[in-house]
């Protein structure tokens, strides 16, 4: 199962390190990362593979929420099918 992680907020050092560290703790593999600054906002999109994940979906989204709170960022993880459904025939 693949998912998309999106991170939106103010840029600061260590964002990628913190998030990839969190994903690594649950054995989630990062497949692709794109990062940009859009209208002054740090915007990162990651595609990740959840097939070897060591926890449930609720646990990882809870951990990312907590991390988002700590870093002052919005972090979401959503299964990739929703984006495929809306943007691909």
């Amino acid at each position: 199962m693949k998912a998309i992680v999106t991170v939106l907020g103010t840029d600061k050092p260590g964002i990628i390190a913190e998030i990839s560290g969190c994903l690594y703790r649950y054995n989630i593999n990062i497949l692709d990362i794109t990062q940009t600054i859009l209208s002054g906002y740090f915007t990162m999109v990651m595609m990740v593979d959840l097939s070897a994940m060591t926890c449930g979906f609720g646990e990882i989204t809870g951990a990312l929420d907590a991390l988002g709170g700590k870093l002052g960022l919005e972090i979401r993880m959503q299964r990739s099918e929703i984006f495929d459904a809306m943007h691909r025939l």
Partner: protein
Amino acid sequence: MLNTSEILSTISMIKEQKLDIRTITMGISLLECAGEGAAEKIYDLVTRRAERLVAVGEEIEREFGIPIVNKRISVTPVSLILGEREDPVAVALALDRAAGTTGVNFIGGYSALVQKGATRNDLRLIRSIPEALSRTELVCASVNVASTRAGVNMDAVRLMGEIILETARLTAGRDGLGCAKLVAFANAVEDNPFMAGAFHGAGEGDTAVNVGVSGPGVVKRALEACRGEPFDVVAETIKKTAFRITRMGQLVALEASKRLGAPFGIVDLSLAPTPAVGDSVAHILEEMGLERCGQHGTTAALMMLNDAVKKGGVMASSSVGGLSGAFIPLSEDIGMIDAARAGTLTLDKLEAMTSVCSVGLDMVAVPGDTPAATLAAILADEAAIGVVNQKTTAVRIIPVPGKGVGEWVEFGGLLGRAPIIPVHPESAEAFIARGGRIPAPINSLKN
């Protein structure tokens, strides 16, 4: 690979434009519960079949990151399974308990289909509606009084005028809230996931998963990008947006069906507003160039919106059904509330709008002293529009006890708030007293 702008556009639709799945509604057949002792059998069956409904809804919400606002249950019209000696209100109480146990937001199907004639059980059920709605929290009732093939059952229309008024009276302490859970239909559909009119038709299987999507805010935002363009550009933009929204609905419906072990029924392609800012159908019409919803031009704008939503959505789902179209519930749409307060949106204009969009006069608050015959005449007009146009129409009207024109009623939550708008004062008593049936209309010689 998806590109960043596509991903961010979906997130913006959910976060800023209030895109959501309005409801996952599980249809459950009660036919096996028919006869005496139905109430207990119904409670057991509904709580067993829908045991995982709310949990599954929450799982999908979490994994896909899309809000699922309501989880609901629809059941076989209760008049069909009622035992001769069974108290219909006991069944309503059992449904209410089952809804409470499963954690759903509403349960619909306290219903009777009397478009041509009423059985003893139909009449017992209809007469029990005021008491049933005053003694339950989560039960929704509906009565189909007309169809294109049967015409309009004017005896049922007359009775429903009285039932609406009595329901308001018995829930007077809550501004007639019971009437917000009661809808009278023409051409009711059997797979509608939306309340208050959802029921699981007799032609359906044991269970079905029906999903209603929403997203007026997404359509409005898309139209902001084509200001001043001709209507064919507007229509194309709406179609593309409706396609995307519906694809998401289809995905959620299939996922819910798989996890619940219940067959996928339909996706209802609807634009269902909420009282929240940015979630209004009226504001879409105003984005098209109207100064205010309800003015001249509103019917044309709504017709185009409704049609384009269907055209865009129908290809995005393997099975489309329910009410499918734009809803115009007055108290649930901030733009309609403002237009009614300004006096631009009147009952007569709302009636015209119902001839081109989904359903009908919805969540309209009128003075508490409106006579039953006038309520029945309003219903007769709506039924006539539905019957002759071969479409579903409905009336969900609240004669607010003790309040008059210009006063406000607050229902709270998704049911919203509304100014009380006037009805015509002329008497409909003699018209409604006739009863009988308005024959089914001719289906050729269309002019």
